[in-house]
């Protein structure tokens, strides 16, 4: 199948997922709710005020996380790199752990304390890495990733300390947030998260050709006409803010950011002008599906979506990898 066709199929499947998922749930909804926007009928309220915002939030969040992974894997030339690797998620988690532990209130223009703390924590982590690159521009990307790993451990130990010394209730709240989840989202969450992801996404998509070149190495990229340092800084900051916004709304949902770009690479190749849109579609649809599974799997209770993402995603990824290796050896 040609690459543009694969992208179109992916787009079709993503649209289908978004269309069907809000109809699926404990309460079977008639198709007529589709026409009853703003209606006071319970079915219409469940559909338009609960399930549609939740599906949209999952899509936007998944798209942002996948895009972030694709960008970091290219600019760091490392298949394991994501904004999480550099501490965005653990910084956010630390923010939430601290406000929960010390009972702080940080409500800003309608945003919850948790969201504000998470976003602030993520930005502190980004700021540390950014400062490192400014102070020592010669640091290699491997060194930066190592610095990120060290920071993750540092944040984790402070989180553990906060949790250990917290009351049982606060400790549970922290653990629950760390698992990630879309239980509390509404249209407001979508409307706050979407512009951040759209802005980050636009910046990233605009740099698609540069990402291809950065993925081949900084010397080649520079020689082909890419201003490497400013491009990397722009991409790094835009992506980190985008993923920080997603984590603030959905919690540190794992797996999507690292694996979605790899799965898309297997499906549509490495060209970023195709890979980035594919990551948006796949990452978005994947998180929507995972969130649906999270809603239904231990029905009537609900699982945190972070429990589901790797549980469903890892076997699928392994299957794709094995299939890829199999077809490669069949060709040779």
């Amino acid at each position, binding site marked *: 199948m040609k690459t543009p066709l694969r992208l179109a199929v992916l787009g079709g499947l993503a649209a289908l997922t978004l269309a069907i998922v809000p109809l699926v749930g404990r309460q079977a909804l008639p198709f007529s709710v589709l026409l009853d926007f703003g209606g006071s009928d319970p079915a219409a309220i469940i559909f338009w005020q609960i399930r549609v915002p939740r599906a949209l939030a999952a899509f936007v969040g998944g798209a942002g996380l996948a895009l972030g992974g694709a960008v970091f894997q290219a600019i760091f030339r490392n298949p394991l790199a994501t904004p999480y690797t550099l501490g965005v998620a653990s910084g956010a988690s630390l923010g939430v752990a601290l406000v929960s532990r010390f009972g702080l209130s940080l409500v800003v223009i309608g945003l919850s304390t948790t969201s504000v703390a998470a976003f602030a924590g993520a930005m502190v982590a980004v700021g540390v890495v950014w400062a490192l690159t400014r102070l020592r521009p010669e640091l290699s990307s491997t060194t930066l990733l190592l610095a990120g790993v060290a920071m993750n451990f540092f944040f984790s130990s402070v989180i553990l300390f906060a949790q250990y010394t917290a009351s049982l209730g606060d400790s549970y709240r922290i653990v629950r947030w760390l698992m990630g989840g879309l239980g509390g989202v509404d249209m407001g969450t979508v409307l706050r998260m979407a512009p951040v992801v759209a802005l980050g996404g636009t910046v990233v998509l*605009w740099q698609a050709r540069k990402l291809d070149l950065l993925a081949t190495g900084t010397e080649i990229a520079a*020689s*082909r006409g890419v201003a490497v340092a400013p491009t990397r800084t722009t991409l790094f900051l835009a992506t980190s803010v985008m993923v920080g916004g997603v984590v603030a709304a959905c919690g540190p949902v794992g797996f999507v950011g690292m694996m979605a770009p790899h799965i898309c690479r297997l499906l549509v190749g490495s060209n970023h002008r195709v890979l980035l849109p594919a990551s948006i579609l796949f990452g978005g649809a994947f998180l929507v599906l995972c969130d649906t599974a999270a809603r239904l799997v231990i029905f009537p209770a609900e699982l945190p979506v972070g429990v589901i993402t790797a549980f469903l995603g890892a076997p699928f990824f392994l299957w794709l990898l094995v299939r890829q290796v199999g077809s490669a050896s069949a060709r040779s």
Partner: protein
Amino acid sequence: MSESRIAVEDLSVRIGEAEILHGVSLNVGRGEFLTVIGPNGAGKSTLLRCLDGILVPSHGRVLIDERPLTEIGRRELARTVSYVPQPDAGPLDYTVRSFVEMGRFPHVNAWAALTEADAEAVTHAMGLTGVAELADRSMSSLSGGERQRASIAAALAQGGSILLLDEPTSFLDYRHQVQILDLLDRLHDESGLTIVAVTHDLNSTVASSNSVLALKGGKVAATGNPAELLDTDVLSAIYDANFRLIEGGHRGLPLVLPARNGS
């Protein structure tokens, strides 16, 4: 003297505490093929990176077509100067065609598709380097020689008139060395490219060039044409080793052999 395409004035590069290049000056005229030789760590690759603005010197300046490099934007520079770095064995999940097409980056807009002129430049570069039949293969699946030719194709697709190459024939078997050297000869003789190549190969690459610059310890140790440089005393002073010359090299030049004790 022919018009200067590359001028280097009193160039010094310091990385941390180490001074890699010190007071290097040189001139490369239009259509000239300069080889840069010297022992390991002499600063050859560093010099090449400075010529393409990848590395910023701590002192001195580089001029391309009589304009200081610092006044030329990256994309504009890329339309004039192409650089082929040392072969990198890392994974590269792009097809050969995609990789060569990336050479057109300084000519295309962020979202615009490649134009007919771009496609033509890509096809021409792939034809010249003999990688057309590898177009749909992954870069990661290529042999060292094929990968090197694809790298040169990408640099040629860039459409510049100055080509910088770092060790273009190292790690290649003899057949592929000859292919690359024939290609450089053609590019120089027929397409009139100005070429600067860093090399350890005193026999073939140096013989293809029309001038040689030797670096030692970050300073210029000798300059001249290949016949002047391929001299046992000159080479001994550059490399701190003994050499033997024998008749029968490329273009009537002698062949250089390192002389071992007792030989």
